[in-house]
């Protein structure tokens, strides 16, 4: 079974530029998550999708971050414009069912450096 795919793996941009990350979850997984992980900290949930609908985006900085999950499969996370403090690893995860009793499968992440 293929895992969660993310691209790109690394990205370096200057502040005020825009960037987009892509995620392809495990086939059949209804729930998709985007996390931000700053160096030395645990992952912080940014947004959670159930199929193509947003379940929770309370921690997403909506003035600069946006995310969509078209057709309930792939998802993109965009930052525009980027700030220095956005430097982090962006993790995508998926689970079969939206419940804590179901394992979340994580992708390898995209490491973003904003200079």
């Amino acid at each position, binding site marked *: 079974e293929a895992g*969660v795919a993310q691209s790109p793996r690394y990205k370096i941009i200057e502040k005020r530029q825009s960037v987009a990350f892509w995620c392809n979850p495990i086939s059949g997984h209804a*729930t998709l998550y985007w*996390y931000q992980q700053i160096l030395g*900290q*645990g*992952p*912080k*949930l940014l947004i*959670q999708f*159930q199929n193509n609908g947003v*379940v*929770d985006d309370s921690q997403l900085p909506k003035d600069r971050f946006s995310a969509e999950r078209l057709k309930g499969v792939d998802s993109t996370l965009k930052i525009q414009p980027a700030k220095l403090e956005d430097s982090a690893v962006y*993790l995508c*995860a998926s*689970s079969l*069912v*939206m*419940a*804590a*009793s*179901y*394992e*979340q*499968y*994580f*992708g*390898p*992440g995209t490491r973003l450096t904003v200079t």
Partner: protein
Amino acid sequence: LAKTTQPISMDSYEGQEVNITCSHNNIATNDYITWYQQFPSQGPRFIIQGYKTKVTNEVASLFIPADRKSSTLSLPRVSLSDTAVYYCLVGDARENAGNMLTFGGGTRLMVKP
């Protein structure tokens, strides 16, 4: 969401058993306890999950007392490759409950030769 508290770091030696305890005093009736492991430059990986008493798989054991206010992850005979960050999480196990697991800082386990 139930908050979890776990030690920031632990050291051990190869071949020893490691026990990492997590406190979750305000755990709710429908909450499950889940542990994830994260190696550098990788996403977290599921280790084990439980509701009460003891759960064991090929990787670890999870001990949960009757009051469920804490849990202990037990790694038998650790090796250098077990050096990682271990996260304890608590979340609602009901389907469509809005599974929003909150990761804390985790416990950084360093296994020495």
